[in-house]
């Protein structure tokens, strides 16, 4: 077997494995009768290293042997292959945020009164972490519950100059009524 064929086999094996192979593991690919010595394999690995010097993948020696790896500087693009689908906020979170926006400052139990269900800690935490909501103070009633208000960051993220840019509650309610009317009409 000539060195070029040998190099192709080593190259193919490293890419097929997708992990590091030691020189012994490479030697084991060959029948005993045709097994290249460690020295020849090492020099072919050096040749491969040079072949890939300017490519998008490179041959690297790591603890367990040699492996091809994607060059680090293309990482920002390549990692997009595994981008997760962006998460979606739940309806409960959006309702809570809307109530804080329209009825601030508002306590959690006031939100719960209007929504008719409890508001989870996870939602409040997410809104605080996202910096859409802040604690504006505490209401002086038993338990001193936090009063929630929206932030400037919230206005920025929703492209609003001020809360006054939010549509008036009345028109939203009209929308809801119109939708309900249409619904009712459709069922007549």
């Amino acid at each position: 077997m000539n060195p070029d064929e040998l190099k192709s086999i080593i190259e193919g094996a490293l890419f097929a494995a997708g992990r590091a192979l030691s020189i012994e593991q490479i030697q084991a690919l060959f029948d005993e009768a045709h097994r290249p010595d460690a020295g020849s394999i090492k020099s072919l690995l050096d040749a491969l290293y040079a072949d890939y010097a300017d490519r998008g993948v490179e041959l690297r020696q790591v603890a367990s042997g040699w492996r091809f790896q994607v060059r680090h500087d293309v990482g920002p693009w390549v990692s997009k292959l595994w981008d997760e689908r962006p998460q979606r906020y739940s309806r409960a979170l959006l309702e809570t945020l809307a109530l804080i926006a329209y009825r601030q400052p508002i306590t959690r139990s006031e939100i719960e009164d209007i929504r008719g269900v409890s508001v989870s800690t996870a939602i409040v935490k997410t809104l605080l972490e996202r910096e859409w909501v802040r604690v504006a103070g505490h209401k002086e009633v038993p338990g001193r519950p936090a009063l929630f208000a929206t932030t400037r960051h919230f206005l920025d993220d929703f492209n609003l100059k001020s809360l006054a840019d939010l549509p008036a509650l009345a028109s939203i309610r009209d929308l809801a009524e119109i939708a309900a009317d249409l619904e009712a009409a459709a069922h007549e």
Partner: protein
Amino acid sequence: MPAESMTTAESTSNQVPEVSMTPPADLFAIAKVNGEDYTKLPDDLYIPPDALRVFLDTFEGPLDLLLYLIRAQNIDILNIPVARITHQYLEYVNLMQAANFDLAAEYLLMAAWLGEIKSRLLLPRPVNAEGEEEADPRAELIRRLQEYERFKQAAEHIDSLPCEGRDFFVAQAQAPDYQRPVEPPQVELRELLLALQDVLSRADLTVSHQVSRESLSLRERMSNILELLRGQRFVPFVQLFSVSEGRLGVVVSFMAILELVKEGLIDIVQADAFADLHVRARVGEAQGNDLDLGDDSSESDLERAFDES
């Protein structure tokens, strides 16, 4: 009609001979056929006896077996001597039954069909209303055999194709170690309003919750005033107003202060008659870090921040 199909030996071939399993002790008898021990395979079977089981197991059904018989005897598929093939076929079926193969139904159906074709071949072909002879009874069998054979060949071809993981391998390299920052979900204002619509229509259904139609600027101003008062003990009343906002701004601030007083969130104090008014937040100091989010061990699964999907 080809002479072979007239062989008399097949006159009983529709009948499956009585076959029973060989007792394991008797290594020489293969099967009992019609009460007689069968100690050797029929001469016209083209397989060594010890390979029988494996061999029969490799047939993919009656069509496959029939094709084998036709090929083994070098018969043109278009000119099947039905009687001879039927005889052969039944020998195999008997052996399969003897070996307790659990696939007799399909094979027996084929046996019956072959028998029918053979009997129709023995009779003069009826002439239909147009004076044409009825189609050859073998035509349908031939069509099915041909149809099966072409897919058998296609399967062999697929098997000969290089297959990933067997004959060739996809190349892969270690992916770069790079963590992408996770982007938080984007929300459209529209979604927020839709959520609000929902909650408001629900609130309307549940008795007495009045979500009053206060102007937003009032609510926003209330938050701003609370913010301003935060961390300060007393703030002069006049500091809560900004002349640059004009008359409307002053009115909004004033209404916001009244609303805050009404909700018990601030106190307005006056040290002496005619002294300056001071405003103090009744709300406690907000310290983001020690915010008690409450014990939520009973957190409802329905009330998560993110959709499960």
